[in-house]
């Protein structure tokens, strides 16, 4: 029988993410994350900053269940997720949207099909999502590139496409790794507005970035990851 996170249970929970004493290391290498304790309340908006190698990407991997913690507990939507069986992972992942630093687009699919991918994988028919995909492509300024494939897109276009794919299914949790790293300031501000809009609609947002100025300008809470620990919040 498939295992699904129970929405009834998390309805009572006010936390989208809770990390307790989480540590992580790659094989026998020294710990990348040490005793990370972190809570993202439902509907919160956070930036995650820190120097290169601080473990930001690893932390995001744990949140997206692309990696399992070496120790500690990862809870998502009120459910234990870090040690959940493999068959339970798709249900968690369908409730989150992820923007990867390296975009992770499918080169053989058009921009339209890349954005529609999470919906298609969930079994939706084209007729039910085509208008939403078109609207979102319009919003991120890629309507004219809907039939283009990722290799034909610029870095900024790929990034916007990755963001569109991450938010198309109205996820409860949005995790983005440097989502404004390849776009100009105007587009960065526009994309930030998109994340803020989704946050106002109830999504919990965590954005990892080097751009501390952007984080400060946004007025959102900032988590600082240093030496494998979430050291301070601003």
């Amino acid at each position, binding site marked *: 029988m498939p295992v699904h996170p129970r929405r009834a249970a998390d309805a009572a929970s006010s936390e989208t993410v809770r990390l307790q004493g989480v540590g992580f290391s790659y094989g026998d290498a020294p710990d990348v994350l040490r005793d990370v304790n972190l809570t993202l309340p439902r509907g919160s908006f956070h930036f995650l900053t820190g120097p290169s190698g601080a473990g930001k990407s690893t932390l995001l991997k744990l949140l997206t269940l692309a990696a399992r913690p070496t120790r500690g507990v990862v809870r998502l939507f009120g459910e234990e997720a870090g040690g959940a*069986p*493999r068959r339970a992972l798709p249900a968690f992942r369908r409730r989150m949207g992820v923007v990867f630093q390296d975009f*992770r*687009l499918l080169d053989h699919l058009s921009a339209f099909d890349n954005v529609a991918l999470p919906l*298609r994988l969930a079994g939706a028919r084209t007729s039910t999502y085509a208008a939403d995909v078109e609207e979102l492509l319009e919003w991120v300024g890629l309507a004219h590139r809907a039939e283009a494939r990722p290799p034909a897109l610029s870095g900024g276009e790929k990034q916007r496409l990755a963001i569109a*794919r991450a938010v198309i*299914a109205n996820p409860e949790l949005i995790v983005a790794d440097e989502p404004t790293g390849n776009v100009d300031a105007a587009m960065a501000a526009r994309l930030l507005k998109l994340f803020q809009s989704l946050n106002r609609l109830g999504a919990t947002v965590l954005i990892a970035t080097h751009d501390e100025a952007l984080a400060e300008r946004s007025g959102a809470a900032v988590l600082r990851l240093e030496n494998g620990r979430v050291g301070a919040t601003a």
Partner: protein
Amino acid sequence: MIRRSGRQAPILPREAGGEPWLAGVIAVLCFLACLAAAGAMAADRAAHGWARALGAEATVQVRPRVGESGATAAARAAETLAGVDGVDETEALDRKTAEALLRPWLGDAVLPDLPLPHLVTVRLNRDHPASAVTLGRALAEAGVDATVDDHSLWRTEVERSAGLITVLAGAAFLLTAGAAAAAVTYATRAGMAAQAPIILILSLNGASDARIAGLYQRRYGLLAAGAGAAGAAAAMAALALLRFVGGRDGITPALPVAWSDVWALSSCPLLAATVALVAARWTALARLRGHD
């Protein structure tokens, strides 16, 4: 406004390298499997035909009484057996007919001096044939010293041989199906290894293992159905040619070809697709679960 065609692009990219190779292998295997199946059907039909023919006749060897000629004894036996229930017709073989039967093997030189058995051919009723015991009893009651051979020994041998051929053909069919499954398994593994980054993206976007396995299952199932259709079509064409050129006997009476055999092969693509579906799904799920 973006124009979308009704047809969705496949989620998995086409593999230009491996798929034509796999399609060729499956087509050849399907062709061989079809020939094995057709051979089994033909052998079974021939054996049953022979067994039926043997079962419809009995041969009686008559030993004349002292002072009685062989021909007279055979005629008396034929007359006796003609009145038995389950016998349609009897015929006493005269010496000339018996010599004609033996001439191809013995030649003319020795035949005139050779003592030949006095035989009666009995054609039995197809629906209610008289048994060897009934025939023997009737002859004994009529005072005819004779041995009845109902060909049961030969019939059993023919049926056993046909059964063996059918089992061998079935084994050949299963082996080719196994080889097709192995080829699909190998191709699925290779495809998944080459597309590991894509599988990761699908997984991170919420695809379950069953959904991903379903993509490979569909791909290789369709490929096997197409390749199987090509292989089956080639086998059907070859069989139809044999039936057309050779008539009911095909190339040899031992393997008579029927038009129904040709049509029976049309299910082969479905079987090939089923084998591929099962092999691809099982392989994909095993590989995905092995990554946990």
